[in-house]
């Protein structure tokens, strides 16, 4: 059952490569922002899985909470900046 959690983390890292593609070659700025948000929301689950693998869940859960808050604040700030900048950044 421990190896199941380990494989779960490896599969999750494989899945995280796909929004990385969208974040690198995305045609608009909104696509890049969305790709980074998708990577961040998967990292929250990955941190809890790492905590289960190392059997230190009590420490890694705090890191996951702080990472979730940081991801949310970063996405809000970047989207506010995007709609202040206006049309020329996002015109497809």
């Amino acid at each position: 059952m421990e190896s199941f959690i380990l494989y779960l983390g490896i599969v999750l890292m494989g899945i995280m490569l796909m929004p990385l593609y969208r974040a690198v070659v995305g045609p608009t700025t909104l696509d890049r922002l969305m790709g980074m948000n998708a990577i961040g929301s998967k990292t929250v689950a990955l941190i809890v899985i790492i905590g289960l693998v190392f059997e230190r869940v009590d420490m890694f859960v705090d890191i996951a909470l702080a990472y979730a808050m940081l991801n949310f604040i970063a996405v809000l700030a970047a989207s506010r900046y995007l709609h202040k900048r206006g049309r020329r950044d996002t015109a497809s």
Partner: protein
Amino acid sequence: MIEILVIFLCCAGMLLFFGGMIGILRLPDAYTRLHMAGMLDTLGLLVLLLGLVLYGFLHAPMSLLVQFKILLLWGFVLVTSPTATHAMVDAGVRAGLTPWVQADVKRRRK
């Protein structure tokens, strides 16, 4: 019995993540991709965290405080992930990004 539930919840979360990523790669427009990311990532993360709480309840014994913190993370994701998606769509609309319509495909085929 609970092990089957743990494996089912974790695999369901992985399947939801995978579906969302396929949608992110293949859909035609930024708004449709945002819809896919917002819906499936939120549900996948919630289901996966529930499975991890059940796993820690069984195999790696957690204290009650750690389970409460994971449930706190569950509630936090439930509130903030749709809010972040809405903020991104709102930024796109205000910045003037035009949505994809069916007429674009017909025009391109002619």
